[in-house]
C-alpha cells in the first residue's frame, strides 16, 4: 500500500492533491473526505480553529493507523493532509483519500482512518470565537 501524509500550516490545495491521483487498473473506488471548519462551535459563531499537534508523535500514530488499515482492507493507497495552526471557518482542516478495488472497502477504510484519527492522534483544537477568549475543546 502506498501512503502519503502531510501536516501543514498552509491551506490544503485539494485540486492539486486530486490532480496527482494515480489509480491502478484494478482499482475501482476512490473515496475522498474533506473535513471543513464549521462557522459555529457549541452554538457560538467562531472565526477559526487553532490546531495544535505533538507533531512527531502524530506522524507516528497516523503511520500506525495506515498499517492497521492495510491489514484490514485491500487498499492501494491512502493520502492525508491535516492543517495545523489557525484554520479559518469554511477552510479544509483534514483531507483524506482512499483508493481500493471496490466502494465497500474504500468507504470502510476511509471511515476507519477518520474515526481513529480523533481517538489516537495527538492533535487538539481550540475554537477562536469572534467575541470570547479561546479555550481548548475537551
Amino acid at each position, binding site marked *: 500500500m502506498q501512503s502519503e501524509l502531510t501536516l501543514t500550516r498552509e491551506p490544503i490545495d485539494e485540486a492539486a492533491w486530486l490532480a496527482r491521483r494515480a489509480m491502478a487498473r484494478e482499482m475501482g473506488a476512490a473515496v475522498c473526505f474533506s473535513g471543513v471548519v464549521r462557522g459555529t462551535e457549541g452554538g457560538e459563531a467562531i472565526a477559526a480553529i487553532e490546531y495544535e499537534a*505533538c507533531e*512527531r*508523535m502524530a506522524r507516528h500514530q497516523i503511520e500506525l493507523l495506515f498499517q492497521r488499515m492495510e491489514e484490514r482492507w485491500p487498499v492501494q493507497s491512502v493520502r492525508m493532509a491535516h492543517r495545523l495552526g489557525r484554520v479559518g471557518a469554511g477552510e479544509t482542516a483534514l483531507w483524506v483519500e482512499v483508493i481500493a478495488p471496490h466502494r465497500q472497502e474504500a468507504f470502510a477504510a476511509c471511515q476507519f482512518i477518520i474515526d481513529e484519527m*480523533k481517538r489516537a492522534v*495527538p*492533535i*487538539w483544537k*481550540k475554537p477562536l470565537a469572534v467575541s470570547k477568549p479561546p479555550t481548548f475543546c*475537551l
Partner: protein
Amino acid sequence: MFPRGGGSCRVGTVQFRVCFFARGRELAGCAEAVESMPPGSCVKELLGKLFRRFPRLVELRKSLRVAVGLDYQSGDCVLRDGDEVSILPPTQGG
C-alpha cells in the same frame, strides 16, 4: 523524543523531560518540565508527582493519556533515564 532512554542520570535518580500540550500546557503554565525520580519509577508515580507540582492539572486527571517517546503507555510503564514523557489531553484531530 525517540528512541527511549539514553540520558545521563545522577546516581540514584532517573531524569526525564515532560512535555505538556494544549489545555494541559495552559493548566501547567509551561510547555516543558524536567523531573527526577528514583530508578524503577513508573508513569503512574510520575503523574502523582506532576499533580502535586502542577495542581491545576488535576482538572484533567480522568482524561489525560501519557506517551513515552512516540507511543502511548499505561500507568505501570517503568520510566528510563532520558525518556521524553508527553502529557496528552483528549485528542480531537480531523
